[in-house]
């Protein structure tokens, strides 16, 4: 019975042009189930549609039916999530609080003031996602959408060199030895696909074309947008802006789940006046805050860089310390922590 209920989708719910829908309904087709057994020619005669339109109606009805049948149980989802490893950040404290690293299939937002290390984290992740599976990585490729112009090849080379050096020190068996021959700075750079978008129109266009790109590059496991805020800060019409942002959020969620990639976006901070007190909050407004699954806030406190997870379904609000070295995004070593601790006293 429940199955029957699920199949009872009305034709008006299909993504068809309005005139076609009107014709279908007036010809007496109410539910998608009514259409499934028809041939295009029959349908075109009965509903007074052109053959092409009839074909599209049937295609739409069938794909809709497939989707309805593709429900997953929570157990299956859990197994799926277990199969996919996370992307490590190379900051073990942050990995621990994130449960092993940045999750694949989810959207993570990194926000913070300029210079605190958002871009550094993105570059680090773009290299880390390529670590071969035998070293505990996921060996994926990356699409990096740079809207601020802050993607500098020089810096990626720094980070990549450090990661290759790190992995080569870990080599223990033959498998890892072989993996290392293919894991070089050159191979890392050729697996990062860079797109520069100069305004929001270009960003929208690129996101539209990404689905196609991802189908042709099934190994992509990470999409970085650094930053979403930059092209959208200068916008007069705020309702238009939040509508576009919602559209982007929707597209990103589809990309993340359908192609099983991790989406990392960065956001700027802005000052909000509330009751005479100014406060730093992520830009782009309240409704955008619902788009990411995880929100990571990077900030300075005295001379320490701190990262707080402040929205996540799976983790408590936790704060960890990190540092940016010439090698990239790293843990703060214990000795260094003690030293700064004593300086404070």
């Amino acid at each position, binding site marked *: 019975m429940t199955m029957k209920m699920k199949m009872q989708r009305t034709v008006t719910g299909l*993504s*068809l*042009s*309005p*005139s076609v829908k009107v014709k279908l309904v007036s010809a007496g087709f109410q539910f998608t189930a009514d259409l499934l057994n028809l041939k295009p020619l029959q349908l075109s005669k009965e509903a007074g549609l052109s053959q092409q339109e009839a074909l*599209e109606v049937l*295609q*739409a009805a069938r794909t809709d039916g497939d989707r309805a049948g593709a429900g997953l149980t929570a157990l299956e989802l859990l197994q799926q999530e277990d199969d996919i490893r996370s992307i490590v950040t190379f900051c073990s404290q942050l990995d621990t609080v994130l449960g092993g690293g940045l999750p694949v299939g989810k959207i993570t937002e990194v926000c913070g*003031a*300029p*210079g*605190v290390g958002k*871009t550094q984290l993105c*570059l680090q992740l773009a290299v880390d996602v390529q670590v071969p599976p035998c070293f505990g990585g996921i060996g994926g490729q990356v*699409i990096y959408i740079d809207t601020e*112009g*802050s*993607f*500098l*090849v*020089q*810096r*990626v*080379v*720094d980070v990549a060199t450090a990661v290759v050096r790190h992995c080569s020190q870990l080599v223990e068996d033959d498998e890892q030895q072989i993996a290392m021959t293919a894991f070089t700075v*050159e191979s890392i*750079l*050729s*697996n*990062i*696909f*860079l*797109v*520069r978008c*100069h305004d929001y*129109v*270009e960003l*929208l*266009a*690129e996101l*539209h*074309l990404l689905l*196609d*790109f991802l189908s042709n590059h099934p190994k992509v496991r990470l999409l970085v947008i650094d930053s979403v805020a930059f092209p959208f*800060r*200068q916008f007069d019409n705020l309702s*238009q802006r939040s*509508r576009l942002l919602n*559209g982007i959020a929707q597209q990103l969620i589809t990309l993340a789940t359908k192609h099983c990639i991790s989406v990392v976006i960065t956001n*700027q*901070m*802005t*000052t909000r006046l509330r009751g005479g007190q100014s406060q*730093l909050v992520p830009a782009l407004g309240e409704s955008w805050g619902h788009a990411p699954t995880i929100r990571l806030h990077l900030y*300075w*406190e*005295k*001379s320490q860089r701190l990262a707080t997870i402040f929205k996540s379904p799976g983790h408590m609000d936790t704060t960890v310390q990190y540092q*940016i070295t*010439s090698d990239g995004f790293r843990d703060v070593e214990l000795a260094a922590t003690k030293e700064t601790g004593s300086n404070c006293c």
Partner: protein
Amino acid sequence: MNWDQLELNPRIIVAVKRAKLKSISEVLCVSGSDLQRLTGLSHSDVQHLLTAVSTTCRRHPPTPVILLLHNQESNLKLSLGCRILDQLLRGGLPVVGVTELSGESGAGKTQLALQLCLSVQYPTQYGGLNSGAVYVCTEDLFPIRRLQQLIQEQTNLRTDVPTDIIHSLRFSDSIYIEHAADLESLQVCLSRRIPLLLARGLVRLLIVDSVAALFRSEFQASDWLERNKQMLAFSSALHHLSREFTTPVLCINQVSDVFSGSDDTLGPRSSTVAPALGLAWANQLMVRLMFLRLQRTVARGDQTSAVRRLEVMFAPHLAREGQDAGIWREGVQAYDIETMPGSIPLSLLLLLFLLGPVSSETVNPMVQDLISRNADFATQLYRAVASRTDDNVLLSPFTISVGLLALLSASNGATRDQLVQGLTMTGLDPQALPGKSRM
């Protein structure tokens, strides 16, 4: 927008025209279902339309980064005209991106900007971009005299460049100066005249000195919303020019005082001032540099200068570091202690001090002269050493002088001249030099 240029079924193009959609951005900004409603097209037709429109928007398909690594043009850096400062910035200013240089008045911001106007004119193998510069003044008159002086002193500053190349460049002909006293004239300048200069390849460096003056003076505190809007429009114009013409943009900014402990959102500070214009402006920058004027001086030859410190506040490719520099007649130049001529003479002076009293009973005017020259030298040396550290210092000038005098007597040519100059003994009769007379 000429829709007929799109590779689409004519049926779709007709529908788009009928829906009175005017531009690509209009199509992309309308949601998919709204497009279906507006055009009366089916779902798959709308997808075709969106794909075609998006493809025309896209400048490049996603490019593997390895291809950029070997692209000479995108890896160019604009040299500051000083080897040590270039090391701090890993080669100089990136050719694409907005760089900010802030500092108190008198810290040397304009000096560095002028130096960049000259440095940009050198061929690329000497760190330049082989083109001129455009300098937008918003607060003061362009310091033309200082520029003339810098041009004359180029041979002393750029010892790495062959002199015939320096003399072949007509520096002042390639610097275009704009005065913009208010935002309106600045906008005209940025939207009309400067794009023209850039498009003709006459300039490849844009300097705005300073951004703070305009935004600080034209708006009341209560107009901050309007101010932010104008500021974003201004910065997006800069970004556009920088990207479109692969041209470095340098914005000079003032600083404002920070009350202790009030806010550390931008990281630890090494002084009590912070760049002006707040977070909204900082969000627009790629590289933020700061010039600090320190409380000590440094000497070099016959010149002294207050010590400046150039600090990297943030940049995607640089560490938070700083480098001490001085401002000399020939320009802004960093120094390191080993190569600084001023530090050599200290030991010599001490030797002379010690030599002086021995012959004090029969003081001859020549020796008297030597003693006073040496005293000058000792002071300079002491100053140079003391300016590097606040710790206690133990110096044995006698030892150093003996060593240097020995060296002096064994040297000739340029080395000898430099030693003599370092010991402030220029113009003395060679026979009167301590190296000759005493050893």
